[in-house]
């Protein structure tokens, strides 16, 4: 939309009737079942309220799939300094807030308020992906600096993930040094000032890569990757390559299956099927408006059934148990058609070459999925 010069979308709610629920009683009953499942689930009920999404830093580094120094390392030296466990302890000691209702009515409250060593507010909320992009990717192992970079991104109006990757590509190309906190802050301020380099950085990792003729640009369809390296988590690579939105982890993230040993993250086997299922599920979930983190609790049969009951009560229709799958498939097909009309082809459903050519330490794997297998992800 930015390319079309669109600056804002305004919605006039005047005359709008309250959001209708066809069967309020059934809706409330199903919502209570879902809420209980969310509170009972150890991730949504314990880990997220205590550590937020930052709890993933330790897991991803321990699995060797935390893309660091512009995706040249899978373990970030000094990750313990920026882990969720460390962050929670720093916030607690300094008098910040480890638990914070960032979203209205949320029962998880995974947000936080990070404060400096005097107890003064620095930013809210410090999230996993930001700690990764502003920390691991740029080689900065200091939470205070990361919090400052996060605040600046919020203030300037920048996405922390693509901006962090853009800075990492610039560092990798030799523009600045990895780990240089002052240089990272300067780069953000260049974006705000609109300098020639600031405009390039502000246009994201692909623009920075083109400017420096640098080959290592971790992005698909112009969208930077997330904090899961596709060589250490092959299925996340399938999602990055084939998602209609580019390298978007929220389109189908398989970390839960890898850590739970349901799928080998380093093998090509089963990744296409797993990514396909996850992408369908996430597309359906996005239609409902339910938070993707809350949806972690849908793994339980009771919660999954409650979700269908919730949709049935909302719409006044008796929906079958396959409603989510059907909705997800329909949504993905619509998105694919939109992309086709926009000129995006299967050749765009590919990871950058370096992921196939440069092994990622410590497992020293490359991305293994064949192109023709990627072309079968949307065969449904």
């Amino acid at each position, binding site marked *: 939309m930015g390319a079309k010069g669109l600056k804002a979308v305004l919605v006039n709610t005047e005359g709008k009737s309250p959001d209708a629920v066809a069967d309020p009683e059934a809706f409330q009953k199903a919502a209570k079942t879902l809420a209980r499942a969310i509170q009972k689930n*150890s*991730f949504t009920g314990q880990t997220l309220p205590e550590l937020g999404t930052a*709890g*993933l830093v*330790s897991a991803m580094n*321990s699995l060797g799939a935390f893309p660091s120094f512009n995706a040249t390392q899978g373990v970030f030296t000094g990750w313990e300094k920026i882990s969720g466990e460390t962050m929670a302890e720093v916030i607690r000691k300094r008098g910040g807030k480890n638990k914070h209702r960032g979203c209205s009515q949320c029962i998880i409250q995974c947000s936080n308020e990070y404060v400096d060593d005097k107890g003064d507010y620095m930013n809210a909320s410090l999230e996993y992906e930001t700690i990764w992009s502003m920390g691991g990717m740029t080689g900065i192992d200091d939470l205070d600096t990361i919090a400052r970079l996060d605040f600046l991104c919020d203030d300037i109006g920048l996405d922390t993930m693509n901006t962090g990757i853009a800075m990492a590509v610039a560092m990798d190309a030799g523009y600045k040094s990895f780990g240089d906190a002052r240089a990272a802050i300067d780069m953000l301020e260049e974006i705000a000032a609109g300098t020639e380099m600031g405009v390039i950085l502000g246009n994201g990792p692909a623009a920075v890569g083109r400017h420096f003729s640098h080959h290592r640009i971790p992005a698909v369809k112009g969208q930077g990757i997330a904090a899961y390296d596709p060589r250490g988590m092959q299925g996340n690579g399938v999602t990055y390559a084939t998602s209609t939105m580019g390298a978007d*982890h929220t389109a189908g993230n398989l970390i*839960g299956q890898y*850590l739970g040993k349901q799928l080998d993250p380093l093998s090509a086997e089963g990744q296409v099927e797993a990514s396909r299922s996850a992408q369908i599920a996430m597309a359906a979930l996005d239609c409902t408006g339910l938070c993707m983190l809350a949806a972690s609790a849908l793994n339980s049969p009771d919660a999954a059934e409650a979700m269908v009951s919730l949709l049935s009560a909302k719409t006044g229709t008796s929906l079958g148990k396959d409603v989510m799958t059907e909705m997800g498939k329909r949504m993905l097909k619509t998105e694919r058609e939109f992309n086709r009309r926009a000129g995006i082809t299967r050749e765009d459903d590919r990871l950058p070459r370096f992921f196939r050519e440069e092994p990622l330490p410590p*497992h020293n794997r490359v991305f293994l999925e064949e192109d023709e297998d990627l072309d079968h992800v949307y065969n449904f």
Partner: protein
Amino acid sequence: MITVTVYFYGTLPRRFAGYDPQQGYTVALRQGADISNLLGHLGLAREKVAPVINGITADHCRKLADGDRVRLFQPVQGG
């Protein structure tokens, strides 16, 4: 006997009094012990815990060796 060092993550650390994340938690087990023995020793046998050794999620039947470093995680999803 073998000695392994355990590192706890998520909400697990606060369940072990005096746990130091830098040093880890040292556990002595009989020769031939596996992950499930370790979890039993730690009182975590009935919980969903993901053990990671050398960057790989380990099966609960994996035999432990003297000097192993075991990282224990609770289930996570994407964020």
